[in-house]
């Protein structure tokens, strides 16, 4: 019986860690989404597609650099930049003319982009499954808690999450651009009146947000098969996290991602067949008690 208990608690601890590694991906993507939502007031439905493009680009970069481990690290640097470039073109080409429009318009525009991107990915990469290999130093597992295996790559994700969170915090709170962006989120007219080029601020924030989406895509690629349809799965989760955490609030995105990731992984332990409902239940509960999100939103 003791063995069962020790396995149960080892399993629970292991599950918590698995949930936390999932949180990393969710947080990175959601933080980008919330940044764009908070500052630009654009609900970027195409965020999921950019995440998918990030994953597919990582595949191509890895393949072009010979398929070895170095490929993954190169992809980690390049792929999000490519996604950022695509988003810059979209922003300068279309979005910048539409900031004054109502949100529904912007939502529809980003939705249209998500459809276009989805089909572009199919055109460029085809329908076959793709796979990005786990880099050599992260292959294998470490026997944590009671000998249960925990993949090394998940450990990497666990550590990458807080790193990105800290970098984002420094970016938004300690840099001039960050402070201007936060001001623009609250009152863009005032920022413009003070003489700052609001359009350029918006472009920067949009590109950074989309860079994060691409980064999430690259990081998730070694753990799943890179397929069409990745965008739809993720965008719903990302939006729910953003809403749970408070629109525009990066710490809210972290909190939301934590709740989502942990309820997802622990839910599987409690009720394997219906484990998937737990994160959504959590969203319902949070919104019942705090309709505007857990933390302060910028709207």
């Amino acid at each position, binding site marked *: 019986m003791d063995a069962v208990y020790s396995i149960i608690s080892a399993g629970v601890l292991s599950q918590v860690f698995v949930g936390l590694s999932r949180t990393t991906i969710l947080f990175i993507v959601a933080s980008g989404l919330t940044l764009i939502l908070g500052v630009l007031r654009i609900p970027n439905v195409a965020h999921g597609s950019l995440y998918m493009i990030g994953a597919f680009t990582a595949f191509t970069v890895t393949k072009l650099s010979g398929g070895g481990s170095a490929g993954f690290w190169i992809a980690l640097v390049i792929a999000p930049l490519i996604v950022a470039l695509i988003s810059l073109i979209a922003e300068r080409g279309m979005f910048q003319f539409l900031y004054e429009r109502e949100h529904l318009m912007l939502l529809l525009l980003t939705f249209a982009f998500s459809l276009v991107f989805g089909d572009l990915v199919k055109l460029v990469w085809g*329908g*076959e*499954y793709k796979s990005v290999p786990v880099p050599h130093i992260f292959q294998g597992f470490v026997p944590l808690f009671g000998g249960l295996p925990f993949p090394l790559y998940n450990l990497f994700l666990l550590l990458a999450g807080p790193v990105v969170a800290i970098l984002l915090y420094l970016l938004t709170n300690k840099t001039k651009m960050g402070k201007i962006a936060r001001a623009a989120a609250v009152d863009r007219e005032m920022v413009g009146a003070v003489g700052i080029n609001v359009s350029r601020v918006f472009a920067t924030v949009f590109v950074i947000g989309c860079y994060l989406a691409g980064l999430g895509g690259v990081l998730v690629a070694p753990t799943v*098969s890179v397929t069409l349809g990745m965008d739809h799965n993720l965008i719903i989760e990302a939006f729910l996290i953003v809403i749970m955490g408070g629109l525009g609030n990066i710490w809210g995105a972290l909190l939301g991602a934590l709740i989502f990731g942990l309820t997802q992984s622990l839910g599987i332990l409690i009720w*394997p067949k219906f484990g998937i409902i737990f994160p959504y239940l959590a969203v319902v509960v949070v919104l019942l008690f705090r309709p505007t999100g857990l933390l302060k939103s910028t709207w």
Partner: protein
Amino acid sequence: MKKSVLLSMSLLLFVGLFMVCPLTYAQNTIKVGIVDTYTGPATTFTMDVLDGFKLAVNEINAKGGVLGKKIEYTTRDEKFKPDIGLAMAKELVLKEKVDILMGTINSATALAISDFAKKEKLPFFVTFSKSEKIIGEKGHPYIFNMNENTAMVGKAAAVALAKKPYIKYWIAGDDYEYGHAIANSLWNNLKKLKPQVQKAGESWWKVGEADFTPYITQILAAKPDFIIAATGGAGMVNFQKAAKATGLSQKIPFYQHTAIELSVLKPQGQNAPEGVFGTANYFFYYPDTPSNRAFVDEFKRAYNREPRIGALSGYMTARFIAAGYKKAGKIDTEGLIKALEGMSLDSPVGPMAIRGCDHQLELPMYFGVTTKNPKYDFLVAGDVQVIQAKDYMPTCDEVLRVRK
């Protein structure tokens, strides 16, 4: 613009659209309407079916077609949604007036279209749906199943696993009909062939689950001899990746249908787990016969990739349609059905027949294990055992008994 001008222009446009739209192909062609999923992860399989079909159709048309008529086809994307699929099928039959319906990878859509085809008395060739209900309880004379179904897979795997020394089994898989059907068929047949086997437990995860670590730790803790992993298309690669990352593939052997198939192994390159057992109905490298090699070369020349099982299904569907009409002597549904029952054609992997009683294509099934091969930069099936159709197909009695 003046109202009258606007009105007349739009009327003109309206009429023009009707004239330009392909109303009816001349009666001098055989029309095949293909409903399938061309969006999302399933596309990898359905493009194979279409390309294999096109390859055969081009061959047949180049030789003058069937009874002097060329085969024409048109596709509709159902986006993996049965209601859209059924609507597309109806449009194909009622508006495009197709002679034959073909498709789809979605079993629910296949069943819906099958029902419609039965009412319209139109032949429907199922190319990638694996539900046993298609020719089982919901079967009827107008349906032809050109790929394997879950009952057959389970029995074939059971035949192979019964010869192995494993006793304690863990059953896991995607929590939907496909997963449960394969697992049930496998387990029931295995128990019949080898009564000593025991079930140590079961775990089922949602379709599209990306994180298997919790389930894998649960299974490792139970220490079974063998795992039956009834994963579906998209889950195959994810499960194999997770099995490798957690070390499961080195600790406990497991089986998945199509684990040894190109679509699962090629994307992973040299990183796919070794020692995974699986069943599949086609390899481009086995059997290494002249006819298989010729097919592979032709396919590669046309589409720049190796053919997989979907390609074989699509290819043989076109071949059977052509041969069936030819034998019937006219483009007639009842004639086609009668001609096809029991007809055997030469395929890239040997002679293949459509069983008369239930219209199931008799495919060979291969059981093997994932192995590295210096000739390819991906893993292939090793230790291949061939399980003949007659050894793993349910009997005519068993099939017809459940039909309503």
